[in-house]
């Protein structure tokens, strides 16, 4: 087989922006076959999947897609985008497709556009539940079994695709692929797999490249000086291994930096679970290759029955928040008691109107590490009150009442009789909208991935 070259220009579409000059240069020098890039993450929490909103600013998403399409399409380079719009559900994919079509019109580009959907209908999921019992093979990362109740309460569910749907779209002649939820490494591995490369090597290459220059070290300070500071990584894969190199000479993919990125966001150092099986990196070798590249060999693919990770969310209420600060020693000393006491009063005042819960974040006083914190002397505490209630109206009223109550709370030993707290904002309370939680995060065996991931191909431009 011939070597295949894939460029990953950013770790996430819409995230700080691709360095346009670096991408232009590596397209000229390395003549890649494909540009493959992830656009999403579950890291930012359940709200984005629930709300249908992107987790990146729209102008940043437009910058990245425009930078890629303007250079790739005229050069005949395939473009693969996974987890479109951040969470990869229909509304996210639709928004990304609209941006892509707009760029095609504006730039006079014409290409075959494949759109791959990853939404899992709750009806379909329900049918997998036999007599109210979910097959035990559907397991969560925590070991919890998926219940019918989890399915019933879920508003949006997506499945995470592997290379299959991308390879199918490439076989049908797609030039640009916009996909729903996908394994980040699979987006990058798909073109090499389509060309006959070993899936173990291709997936391992994708797993290191997925966050672009995050897998590289700076030889000279580069990134802080750039506004659009995502730097492409060039991956060249052949029958025996692959070479990774950043698109600028002041960065280097070293054996150490590549190994460290292999450990990123994974609980295992050696195994990567993907829909098609497991990638075993225990025999992988990392060798320095020229000045700023690393060659990796020995990664193996172990096929297993096809299974996909499902991600689902449920709505749990509406949120209003307010930030305040406490600088008065007498109040700092009694803060926990004061917050607990006002919480009780709110329940008595508003409990009949619906359910709500107040979550306190006391910055400066164990907010981040909570019980795992070692004690420290305090002189000032920032408090974020997070009220989650049945309705926005109730959350708002509880939060506002709470803000003034804390401001004038007559705690023992109070001497600040004109008021107790530093209020940060005007208006004091911010209404945030719907609150979601993860309801499904389970792996599920699927004999045929085409049952879930549907593809549409059309002409754009």
């Amino acid at each position, binding site marked *: 087989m011939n070597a295949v070259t894939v460029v990953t220009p950013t770790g996430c579409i819409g995230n700080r922006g691709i360095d346009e000059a670096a991408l232009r240069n590596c397209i000229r020098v390395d003549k890649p076959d494909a540009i493959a890039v992830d656009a999403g993450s*579950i*890291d*930012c*929490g*359940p*709200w984005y999947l629930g709300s249908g909103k992107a987790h990146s600013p729209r102008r940043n998403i437009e910058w990245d897609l425009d930078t890629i399409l303007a250079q790739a399409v005229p050069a005949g380079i395939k473009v693969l985008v996974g987890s479109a719009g951040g969470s990869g559900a229909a509304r996210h994919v639709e928004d990304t497709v609209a941006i892509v079509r707009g760029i095609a019109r504006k730039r006079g580009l014409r290409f075959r556009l494949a759109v791959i959907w990853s939404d899992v209908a709750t009806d379909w999921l329900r049918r997998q539940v036999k007599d109210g019992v979910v097959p035990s093979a559907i397991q*969560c*990362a*925590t070991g919890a079994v998926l219940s019918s109740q989890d399915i019933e309460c879920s508003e949006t569910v997506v499945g995470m695709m592997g290379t299959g749907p991308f390879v199918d779209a490439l076989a049908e002649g797609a030039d640009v692929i916009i996909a729903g939820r996908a394994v980040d490494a699979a987006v990058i591995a798909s073109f090499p797999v389509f060309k006959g490369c070993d899936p173990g090597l291709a997936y391992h290459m994708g797993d290191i490249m997925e966050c672009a220059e995050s897998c590289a070290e700076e030889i000279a300070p580069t990134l802080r000086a750039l506004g659009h500071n995502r730097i492409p990584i060039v991956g060249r894969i052949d029958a025996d291994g692959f070479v990774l190199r950043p698109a600028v000479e002041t960065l280097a993919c070293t*054996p*150490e930096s590549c*190994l*460290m990125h292999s*450990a*990123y*966001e*994974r*609980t*295992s*150092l*050696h195994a990567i679970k993907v829909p098609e099986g497991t990638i075993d990196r225990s025999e992988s070798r990392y060798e320095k290759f020229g000045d700023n590249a690393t060659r990796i060999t020995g990664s193996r693919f172990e096929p297993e029955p096809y299974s996909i990770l499902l991600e689902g969310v449920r709505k*749990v*209420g509406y*949120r209003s928040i307010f930030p305040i600060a406490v600088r008065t020693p007498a109040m700092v000393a009694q803060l926990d008691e004061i917050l607990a006491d006002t919480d009780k009063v709110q329940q008595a005042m508003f409990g009949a109107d619906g359910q709500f*819960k107040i*979550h306190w*974040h006391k910055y400066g006083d164990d*907010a*981040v*590490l*909570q*019980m*795992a*914190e*070692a004690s420290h002397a305090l002189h000032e505490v920032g408090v974020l009150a*997070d009220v*989650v209630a049945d309705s926005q109206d109730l959350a708002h009223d509880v939060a506002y009442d709470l803000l003034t109550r804390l401001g004038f709370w007559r705690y023992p030993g109070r001497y600040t009789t004109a008021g107790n707290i530093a209020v940060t904002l005007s208006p004091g309370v911010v209404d945030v909208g719907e*609150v979601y*939680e*993860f309801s499904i*995060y389970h792996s599920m065996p699927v004999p045929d991935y085409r049952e879930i991931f549907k593809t549409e191909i059309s002409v754009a431009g």
Partner: protein
Amino acid sequence: MDNLVEDEVAARRRFKVMRSKNAGPFAITLDMVFRNEADFSRALSSLTPAMVAQAYHVEASAVTGVSSLAPLRAIKVSYLRLTPAGHPGDSDCYGMNQEEPLARLLLEILGPPT
């Protein structure tokens, strides 16, 4: 910066990397890389899941085994979160700022620099 923070920063220069991050919404994974072989082997032979559980106030069963990459002097350990990422009450949605209890634990294990 007061002296206390400066002292804490100086002590943590012993680690080349000491980081935390989500591994999915239900787990946090911790990676540490040591500057010298002696610290790495001392940490690897002493660190147990039970110690990590105690440092993070989670059940011992919530901590995965300790694994290592000797050529890098790197150690990884992961644990299941008490509150899933981004759920009400969670303090660190991306899990990017949970390394300090482990740093403190390791400095105790390693003792003063030799």
